[in-house]
């Protein structure tokens, strides 16, 4: 019996060794020069609200590529999903700036040829080759939309209208506050501290020294007893506001639009301290099984009409400048509301999500890197 047991353990160990995933994947080689025939299927990972029927249905009719979309709640979630099944499970992802570089350096996404995207030439200059998706002139994706993370509140319950992020750190709305369950939320705390506590000298909320980082974590620890719930999916925050369990919180414009459509009295704004935000890119897996459909998709979502539809639906700003006119046609005043064709000054005022790394901009290795952000976030919540 003893012998048998030992043999099973050995067998198990060998099997386990075989199960160890092979690490290191090669990036796709050689750029395509034209888009071939569609493969009939397209598997996407997207933010909630990015694959609406409104523009997916005509795409399917036009190209024959049937879209299967999976929502992700955080950038971490997106990276994990992109790597599942050795990277063959999904063809593309709508990655934000805090995921895109991780995907590029992890070898998970392919180089793409922007010449195959006709609308690319109409993009605002800042999003043609932004540092979050273009490395040394090589494109690893096509920019999509961008926007700020906002402060959302129930206008019936929160009076007067809040002007500062301090509202979600104050006791006034204790037990009625909700913020995203996302380590990158530490940057929001850091952004608030950069204005509220100038003595910390926070310049970039994603590049924090240990002292600055600790100050942000301490702020979040003090905030925790005030929080009703950390939301993981946008729909969870929508439910919290609908039921009245939360009356104020950090949000995306998508939630505001959905709640307003449901006749909930809410309003959102960029508080005086400014805001963090996202600049999203459609990226293609380096092991995509449906690359032609993915190219067709990237071309489709870059067209002015789809850009405008998505911008209005989600409440964000399109990369394509030609979308502004369409936006106003679809919903008068929406181009201005969502800063379509905004100045470089406005664009630069938003602190876009990026992956915190140990090397700060000043060249020194004294910043807190992202794994420690994730860890601190989990521990703060614990």
């Amino acid at each position, binding site marked *: 019996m003893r012998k048998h047991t030992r043999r*099973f*353990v050995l*067998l*198990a*160990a060998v*099997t*386990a060794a075989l*199960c*160890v*995933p092979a*690490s*290191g994947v090669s990036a796709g080689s050689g750029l395509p020069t034209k888009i071939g025939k569609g493969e009939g299927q397209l598997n996407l990972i997207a933010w909630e609200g990015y694959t609406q029927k409104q523009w997916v249905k005509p795409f399917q009719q036009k190209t024959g590529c049937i879209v299967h979309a999976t929502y992700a709640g*955080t950038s*971490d*979630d997106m*990276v*994990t999903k992109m*790597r599942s099944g050795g990277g063959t499970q999904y063809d593309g992802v709508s990655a934000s700036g805090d995921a895109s570089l*991780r995907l590029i*350096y*992890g*070898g998970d996404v392919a180089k793409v040829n922007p010449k195959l995207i006709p609308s690319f030439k109409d993009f605002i200059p800042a999003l043609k080759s932004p540092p979050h998706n273009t490395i040394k002139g090589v494109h690893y994706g096509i920019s999509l939309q961008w926007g700020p993370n906002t402060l959302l509140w129930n206008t019936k319950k929160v009076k007067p209208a809040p002007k500062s992020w301090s509202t979600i750190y104050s006791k006034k709305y204790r*037990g009625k506050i909700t913020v995203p369950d996302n*380590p990158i939320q530490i940057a929001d705390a850091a952004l608030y501290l950069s204005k509220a506590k100038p003595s910390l000298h926070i310049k970039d909320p994603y590049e924090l020294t240990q002292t600055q980082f600790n100050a942000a974590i301490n702020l979040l620890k003090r905030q*925790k*007893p005030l*929080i*009703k*719930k*950390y939301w*993981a999916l946008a729909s*969870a925050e929508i*439910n*919290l506001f609908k*039921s*009245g*369990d939360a009356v104020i919180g950090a949000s995306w414009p998508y939630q505001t639009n959905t709640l307003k459509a449901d006749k909930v009295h809410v309003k959102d704004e960029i508080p005086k301290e400014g805001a963090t935000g996202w600049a999203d890119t459609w990226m293609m897996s380096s092991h995509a099984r449906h690359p032609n459909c993915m190219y067709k998709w990237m071309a489709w979502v870059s067209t002015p009409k789809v850009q405008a539809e998505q911008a209005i639906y989600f409440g964000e700003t399109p990369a394509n400048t030609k979308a502004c006119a369409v936006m106003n046609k679809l919903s008068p005043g929406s181009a201005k509301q969502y800063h379509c064709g905004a100045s470089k000054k406005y664009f630069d005022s938003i602190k876009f999500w990026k*992956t915190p*790394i*140990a090397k700060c901009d000043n060249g020194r290795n004294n910043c807190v*890197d*992202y*794994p420690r952000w*994730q*860890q601190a976030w*989990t*521990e*703060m*919540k*614990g």
Partner: protein
Amino acid sequence: MRAARLRFTGLFWRHRWAKALLLLAPPLLAFALVYLAALVALFLSSFWTVNAFTSEVQHIWNLDNYRLLWDQGAYHKIALRTIGIAAAVTVADAILAFPLGYFMARVAGGRSRAFIFVAVLLPLWSSYLIRVYIWQLILAHDGVLNWSLEKVGLPAANIGYTNWAVWLIFTYIWLPFMILPVYGALERVPDSFLEASRDLGAGGWTTFRRVLLPLALPGVVAGSIFTFSLTLGDYITPLLAGGASSQFIGNVVYDSIGSQQTPFAAAFAVVPLAVMGAYLLIARRLGAFEAL
């Protein structure tokens, strides 16, 4: 052809073990490959590390993950919360299941017993998620509970998105897993024992305490294995119905996998395994395995 068949059956007749091996090989192989190999892989990967930037797993052996679990008070708190709520759910389920199991086993007639059986098992037919979401609707700020309280003039109970909600929902969801073994154990207690107890002058309470409960205890412990282990490994109810301080071990594991920290997730997943192992040893002492 016939000869070949005879030789084949003859082989099995002469070597009994060959037959047993043939019968047992598929489940044993599945057990070794799927279950043990997964556990071994889990255990091994808990000693690995992750590249800070690309988040790829690197096979560098170290104890950092366990050191982190040991050093950080937050993880102790999460582990204790998980074990504590699992224990509270188990106790609540045992208290709820005992009278119901007793009624089913010793009082109810054939028809009403069948009816109760269906009533106990019926919730298991609907999706786990649906049941959690229904509780969310009941407990929400503008939910059924607060609406009812308001109608009878009581103050609102804001237990939505708290650990109370998590405890309540778990108690509800795992209750059938406690009722069935308790019922089985109570049914096996011979009537004559209870009569003898009464004849010897014991009242209802004494009979319960000194005869019924000790005899039914293995059933309760068997049920507690289900309620305790199911709660211990869950992450969905805390995620959906929990509040700001409702993280379970499962949630940290889920988040860590989500943030590519697979080795750390593996290390934390070893904790409930160890807890459950200890629990099963105690349960075996109490005779739970005979009541399963």
